[in-house]
């Protein structure tokens, strides 16, 4: 048993080193390999530490899991990454809950069933099951199986409150009691599963980045709780790392939207927006064409591209890279400004652009890029809306007031590409579109960029 624990410590060290190497894209890939070696060591140490293990059964389980996992990993498209991470969070939480349940059944009614053991089992099952069902709802919303709109009904918060209370009551009963609590134990599983669903359905599609990050954190907490059940350092350290990671990302996403976590979870944003933009001011916009945009760009020295999720929806990542390369070949400096919530999960837009071969040094985050707009000649806004709305800086009545935005309006000229004048997720009109230095080019991002590329070449 001693060497097994040493192996777990080694695995944990390799996980930490692996994440540490994620601090730069240069070393990140080797970091991932190091972490996977850590996992291999932990698995081998576990398998070899018990006699009489049913190797055949474990091998069958691993082969099935490996085939499913590999199929997902190879076939998933980068735009579907949030769904995949969501469903994987679910599997992780589910695995932890199952292990805790197995432990409960084996120790139930024996002398080994201490209060601490039962308490941690209940915690692990609660978090793990909630993660499982919550993640599947999140997956369904992102994949379009379930409506991306918030699903709300009267008394929802009260229902959730009652469910949570009954969960605590049943959990406490099972933990403190002795003997007749098997039904209560099943009750905990059932209510945790329902709570995972009822807590996730009222959250709108635009808030999914927060939810996925939070569920990511939960899957870590579930693993750590299972570590307490089994008194296993490997699970505890790894679970703590994942829990911390998810929590940090959740916080970054909330800050990116200037919302509190409670507001995201209970706010059901996306529904009651009609009231938000009440006194919709009329703004007059200047609509333009791609050849005019090409001429504006020809006169520029420094260009900043601002991609929003509309760009990814239009599958225009490659088209934008071609335009950017064309501009670079004309001697212009091109940078990309990436807002924290530009994609559907933390860092999503960066991956989408990396897939289109955009060099990562050109991708700037909010703090890096905002000073750059001051001396920027042209900012090209592609399928982004709320994240470039200057109202967030000054209009206290705006629903997005206080949200950190990209200061594109400080550029000399702003070219905005949108499909239509429809407002963004927050349901509000963007005053930027009426600014004197703003030019609108309507149309599908991919078509617009392809034509723009042609126009630039023909200059």
């Amino acid at each position, binding site marked *: 048993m001693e060497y097994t624990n040493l192996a777990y410590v080694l695995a944990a060290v390799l996980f930490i080193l692996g994440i540490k190497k994620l601090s730069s894209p240069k070393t990140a890939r080797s970091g991932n390999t190091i972490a996977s070696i850590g996992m291999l060591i932990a698995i081998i140490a576990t398998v070899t530490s018990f006699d009489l293990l049913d190797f055949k059964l474990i091998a069958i389980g*691993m082969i099935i899991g490996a085939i499913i996992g590999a199929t997902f990993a190879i076939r998933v498209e980068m735009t579907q990454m949030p769904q*995949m991470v969501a469903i994987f969070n679910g599997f992780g939480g589910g695995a932890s809950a199952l292990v805790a349940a197995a432990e409960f059944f084996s120790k139930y009614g024996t002398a080994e069933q201490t209060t601490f053991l039962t308490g941690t089992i209940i915690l692990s099952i609660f978090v793990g099951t909630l993660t499982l069902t919550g993640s599947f709802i999140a997956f369904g919303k992102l994949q379009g199986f379930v409506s991306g709109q918030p699903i709300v009904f009267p008394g929802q918060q009260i229902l959730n409150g009652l469910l949570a209370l009954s969960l605590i009551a049943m959990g406490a009963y099972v933990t403190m009691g002795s003997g007749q609590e098997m039904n209560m134990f099943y009750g905990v599983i059932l209510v945790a599963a329902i709570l995972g669903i009822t807590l996730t359905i009222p959250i709108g599609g635009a808030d999914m980045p927060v939810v996925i990050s939070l569920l990511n954190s939960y899957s870590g907490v*579930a693993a750590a709780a299972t570590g307490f059940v089994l008194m296993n350092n490997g699970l505890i350290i790894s679970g703590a790392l*994942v829990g911390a990671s998810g929590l940090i990302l959740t916080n970054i996403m909330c800050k990116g939207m200037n919302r509190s976590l409670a507001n995201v979870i209970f706010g059901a944003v996306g529904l009651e927006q009609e009231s938000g933009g009440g006194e919709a001011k009329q703004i007059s916009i200047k609509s333009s064409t791609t050849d005019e945009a090409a001429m504006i760009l020809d006169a520029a020295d420094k260009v900043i591209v601002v991609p929003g999720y509309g760009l990814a929806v239009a599958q225009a990542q490659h088209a934008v890279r071609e335009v950017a390369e064309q501009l670079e070949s004309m001697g212009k400096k091109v940078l990309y400004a990436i807002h924290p919530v530009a994609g559907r999960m933390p860092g999503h837009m960066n991956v989408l652009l990396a897939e289109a071969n955009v060099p990562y040094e050109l991708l700037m985050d909010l703090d890096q890029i905002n000073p750059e707009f001051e001396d920027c000649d042209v900012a090209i806004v592609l399928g982004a809306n709320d994240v470039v709305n200057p109202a967030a800086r000054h209009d206290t009545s705006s629903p997005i007031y206080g949200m950190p935005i990209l200061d594109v309006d400080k550029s000399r000229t702003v070219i905005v590409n949108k499909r239509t004048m429809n407002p963004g997720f927050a349901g509000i009109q963007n005053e930027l579109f009426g600014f004197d230095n703003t030019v609108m080019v309507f149309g599908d991002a991919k078509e617009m960029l392809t034509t723009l590329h042609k126009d630039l070449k023909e200059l």
Partner: protein
Amino acid sequence: MDIINILTVFILAIFVGFEIITKVPPTLHTPLMSGSNAISGIAIVGAIIATKVGGEIGTWLGLIAVIFATINCVGGFMVTDRMLKMFKRK
């Protein structure tokens, strides 16, 4: 191992986690997430143990847990590698 020891490990691990994860740049947040997904597949260790010590129910619950956790490990590390491969310099 007693409870205080294991709690110490847990708390220190959280601090280490916060320290190293805040240093991951936003560009790599998606790979961080899928990679930490893979790491939470460490539940596989518990799953393997459960197949042995959990009696007949434990064996079956453990088997399903082994499948779930393997999906996480294999899928998580593979997709992270696939993504990180795409991050190129000029």
